[in-house]
């Protein structure tokens, strides 16, 4: 019986969730390409506040978050906010159809294989990471609900005002 329990525990071990990149940690690396072919690297935007959002065309809350992200980018662009939306659709046509219906005035990059989602330990769709000017993770949000918009905007404003 004891041996069986040990064996079962060994099976369960690989399933143990890996520690997620948490608030306060340094942001992981990110280097992806926009649909137009422009290369975007997170390290080049040190000193800016980056709102990184992982989305996909089939995710309904993502559709709701786009107009809000558009208004945030316009409102705070001059103060140094960069909104970077990583698309995780396996088929590029899905992403392009979504963008045709719900346009984005912020930067969109493509990651069809989902490698960046893996390294950033994305737990749900959508997930957004607020990265401060010094490259530290300030906030992580999963999902998007309309009543969260104001508190997220306040976090962005605080991040823009702070030097960390």
């Amino acid at each position, binding site marked *: 019986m004891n041996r*069986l329990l040990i*064996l079962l525990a060994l*099976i369960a071990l690989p*399933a143990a969730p890996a520690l997620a990149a948490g608030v306060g940690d340094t942001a992981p690396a990110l280097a992806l390409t926009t649909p137009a072919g422009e290369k975007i690297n997170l390290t080049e935007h040190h000193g800016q506040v980056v709102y990184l959002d*992982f989305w*996909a*065309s*089939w*995710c309904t809350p993502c559709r709701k978050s786009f107009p809000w992200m558009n208004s945030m980018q316009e409102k705070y662009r001059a103060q140094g906010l960069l909104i970077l939306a990583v698309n*995780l*659709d*396996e088929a590029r046509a*899905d992403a392009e159809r979504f963008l045709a219906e719900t346009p984005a005035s912020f930067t969109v990059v493509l990651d069809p294989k*989902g490698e960046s*989602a*893996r390294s950033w330990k*994305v*737990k*749900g*769709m959508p*997930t957004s990471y607020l990265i401060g000017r010094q490259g530290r993770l300030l906030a992580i949000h999963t999902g998007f609900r309309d009543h969260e918009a104001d508190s997220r905007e306040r976090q962005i404003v605080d991040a823009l005002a702070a030097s960390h």
Partner: protein
Amino acid sequence: MKPTVAKGRSSMRWRQVTELALLLLALAGCAPVEPWQKGHLAQPGMALDRDPLERQMSTHVFESKEGARAGDTAGGGGCGCN
């Protein structure tokens, strides 16, 4: 009646070990589905009950066969009226 020959203890043990080994091997094939890989599940054809009218019909047939209202949900006592 001639009793059936009982299997030897050691061969029983080996069988158990083999079964356990095969079970572990099979479980090793389990791969988790990441949150961003669930696009196929979001397609309309993947919904369990797409047409509300069809769902109402199925529920009614089920309820009348079970002889209980809301018989497809768990819990509750309640009347058996039809």
